[in-house]
């Protein structure tokens, strides 16, 4: 049987406002538990919410970034349910009248194929606190620092049909929200969290299959695995003659398994109704226009600019323009090195490999953009060879100083003194007289193969510091004399 997968995403994006959506508490991550929970965040009797307009503005920026309708009038509702990390017994969210209406996000796949993913809407809401189940001897602790952190929930249409597409979409959203500066993009801290709705159906079938929702995935890798797992599970169930239950599932990254959390039958009746403590949110055309003018460069625009301005390949531009921090780093290297091609090669090559291996992102790179730029400068002015440059990068990575300090301290400066190099070449030809004679007797093809041996010997003799062009020229001259 031929199966087809249908995927839709709900993405929670924490907005990087200074204060919470309905209180003046800080949204900083990492503070002592409950130190950023005010009377309002604690749901104290008699307290009332006051909307943080900054959160509204950031939601609007997102809407503008995806060309969505910005609703001039939106409203908050209460979603009622009991949970210990939900202090008021309801989440203040938007339902009937979200701030951001329908929009489009274009994704590009590895084979270059492009696809439009429709956004159903995006709404503002408050985050819940955290329940802590460890360290409390069979009890649970509650940390309300996160309670009230502003979120936008972005709801896509079920337009995705593979995990690759879903991940490309998720990456694109990450790229957009970080580029327009509304989210810090720290996935490991939960700044972006993905709920994945998955269903399968036989190829050619019009009707959608029953879907399940796998909640709270906070990495692209987990998302990819969770989707693959769920697609496989659903197909297995259906091929065995079973039916899919509409349910919420939890993915466990440690065991790479998922389990059902609750089915539709025991789902809450959230009893939504308009929040009587908050006025409807009105946004004027002028406010929207002011935000549109202030909209930072979008990833697609930046990619096009990189291709144009720096003559990058589409692939390199993608790697460098997708992430704002990466893009800023790259442009800083270019400014320093004054060579976009080399800068792109080093950032996407050597540096990216090192960051990947150490599981670091570009913001935490041990090598600053200035240092990498300086390494490229030294490469270009022939102070060092590209092989040595990798050594310098490693030393900088290990905190051994600036590129120039490293080059100086380790004596890595390229040998370009032709007199000295000539002596070395003469010596090595003398030491390897048999090989030299064989070279002279050989034909053009064989010579090519043998040449490398002499270069190797020369590098060995100079600890790799010999200027490769000069060595090549000298060897060619001396070996044929």
């Amino acid at each position: 049987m031929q199966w087809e997968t249908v995927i839709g995403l709900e993405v929670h994006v924490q907005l990087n406002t200074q204060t919470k959506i309905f209180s003046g508490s800080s949204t900083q991550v990492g503070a002592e538990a409950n130190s950023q929970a005010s009377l309002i965040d604690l749901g104290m009797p008699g307290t009332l919410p006051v909307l943080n307009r900054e959160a509204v503005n950031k939601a609007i920026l997102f809407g503008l970034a995806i060309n969505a309708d910005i609703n001039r009038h939106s409203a908050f509702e209460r979603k009622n349910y009991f949970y210990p990390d939900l202090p008021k017994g309801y989440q203040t969210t938007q339902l009937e009248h979200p701030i951001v209406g329908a929009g489009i996000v274009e994704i590009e796949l590895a084979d270059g194929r492009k696809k439009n993913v429709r956004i159903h809407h995006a709404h503002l809401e408050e985050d819940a606190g955290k329940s802590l189940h460890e360290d409390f001897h069979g009890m649970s602790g509650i940390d309300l620092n996160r309670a009230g952190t502003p979120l936008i929930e972005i709801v896509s249409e079920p337009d995705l049909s593979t995990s690759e597409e879903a991940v490309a979409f998720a990456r694109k959203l990450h790229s957009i929200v970080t580029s327009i500066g509304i989210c810090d993009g720290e996935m490991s801290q939960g700044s972006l969290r993905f709920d994945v709705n998955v269903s399968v159906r036989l190829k050619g079938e019009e009707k959608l299959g029953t879907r399940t929702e796998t909640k709270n995935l906070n990495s692209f890798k987990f998302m990819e695995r969770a989707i693959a797992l769920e697609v496989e599970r659903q197909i297995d169930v259906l091929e065995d003659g079973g039916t899919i239950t509409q349910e919420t599932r939890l993915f466990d990254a440690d065991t790479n398994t998922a389990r059902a959390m609750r089915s539709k039958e025991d789902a809450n009746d959230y009893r939504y109704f308009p929040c009587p403590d908050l006025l409807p949110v009105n946004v004027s055309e002028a406010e929207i226009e002011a935000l549109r003018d202030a909209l930072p460069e979008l990833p697609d625009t930046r990619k096009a600019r990189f291709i144009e301005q720096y003559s990058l390949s589409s692939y390199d531009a993608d790697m460098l323009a997708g992430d704002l921090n990466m893009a800023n780093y790259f442009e800083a290297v270019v400014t320093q090195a004054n060579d976009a091609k080399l800068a792109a090669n080093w950032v996407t090559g050597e540096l990216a490999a090192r960051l990947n291996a150490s599981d670091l992102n570009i913001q935490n790179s041990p090598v600053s953009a200035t240092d990498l730029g300086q390494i490229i400068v030294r490469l270009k002015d022939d102070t060092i060879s590209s092989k040595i440059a990798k050594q310098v990068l490693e030393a900088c990575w290990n905190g051994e100083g600036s590129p120039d300090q490293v080059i100086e301290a380790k004596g890595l400066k390229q040998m370009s003194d032709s007199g000295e190099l000539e002596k070395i070449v003469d010596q090595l030809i003398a030491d390897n007289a048999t090989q030299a004679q064989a070279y002279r007797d050989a034909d053009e093809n064989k010579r090519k193969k043998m040449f490398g041996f002499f270069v190797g010997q020369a590098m060995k003799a100079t600890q790799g510091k010999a200027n490769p062009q000069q060595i090549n020229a000298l060897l060619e001259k001396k070996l044929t004399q």
Partner: protein
Amino acid sequence: MSLHDKSLTQLRDGIQQGDFSSREVTEHFLARIKKHDAQLNSFISVTEERALQQADAADQARQKNQGGVLNGVPIAHKDIFCTRGIRTSCASRMLDNFISPYDATVVDKLGNAGIVTLGKTNMDEFAMGSSNETSFYGPVKNPWDLERVPGGSSGGSAAAVAARLAPAATGTDTGGSIRQPAALCGITGLKPTYGTVSRWGMIAFASSLDQAGPMARSAEDCALLLQNMVGHDEKDSTCLNRAVDNYLSDLDNDINGLTIGLPEEFFPADLNGNIADVTRKAIAELEKQGAKVVSISLPSVKLSVPTYYVIAPAEASSNLSRFDGVRYGYRCEDPSDLMDLYKRSRSEGFGDEVKRRILVGTYALSHGYYDAYYLKAQKVRRLIRDDFARAFEKVDVIAGPTSPELAFGLGAKKDDPITMYMADVFTIAVNLAGLPALSMPGGFIDGLPVGVQLIGNYFREGQILNAAHRFQLATDWHTQAPTFAGDI
């Protein structure tokens, strides 16, 4: 004249002029509370120590020519207002152990004006009730007849003011909770336009209807207290940002030419004839002073009780979700798991009427019922508002009885919620429309006070206070004191 017979305004002036100190006045009322409140049960907490500290501070401020406009005057706060460091119970077992970490804006504002807080008054649990019998701390007795209810939910405030245990008190009104007990206890009480007084720190019952207001013996005292309660508060998004009106400046204006509308719906055929008579007589007094009386109709008002009993419980069911035994308030003994903690904390912490309304509200908001109940109720609410808007095109003030009946016997309606809900039939529409209204003493029947309600257009508190004050200049119903409240 003993201190407790003096009006709020007279006490304020006397303290300011040095006729007596705030400490003397405060001690006097504290002594009266000690002597009489065992009978009335109008206070949940008496904050004697703090009151005397505040009084001394007020006296010192006066010596330095400092202090607010109500410097040193003692009043009581309904126990629905959060008071820092003082138990704030909302008359519920759920909050019996709750010491508020902060002050409500109303408490704060009055504190800044120099008010001394005598204590926290009894009320229906979470302000749900019309007889003050749903309090965890037991019913309040009506000082005019200790076998009768004082009305509710601000029954403790009304009884305390009527019995001269406090010159004035704060109250809150969601469906009549200031006006109905004011009527049944023979005092004056005003519910302002929705959004005039900040709701910050006032424990929410039904957010779109709740308003705080003053309860005192006269319209003049209500105006003085109200003046110090109102104003924009950035902590309450529904609190209006507009210039504060002066409620005192127009009190004495004559009411010549004032048009008073009498809605036929407020004088139904089955209304207690004596209450109708007292009300008409009171209106006749206003007519005598030059007011013009016309008949009007508010056809949708008859739908206000069922409308209210969908909207208010719906909001309450959500507002009261925070009382879950997790962070503060009552928690059941030895919960076996989270669900048990929720279920038993709430089952044991809330009283029957509160649970009834949570159930009704939860039902009204449930999937499949929302449109039929909550949404429809909101539509009717609009009709009611439109009725009033049309009426106010023709009249300045709408008048009628505050309550369809006199103070009823304790326990008389306790097991009949529907009859109890009808006690607010004349007051509820005002909350649904968000209008200001007051109740003033209009006369007596068999020794029990009758309240007359004056409803104003939006922000016309000044106008209804003016009419009530003019009425009170010509009558002495508001100065009558219940017999038991003799001198100490």
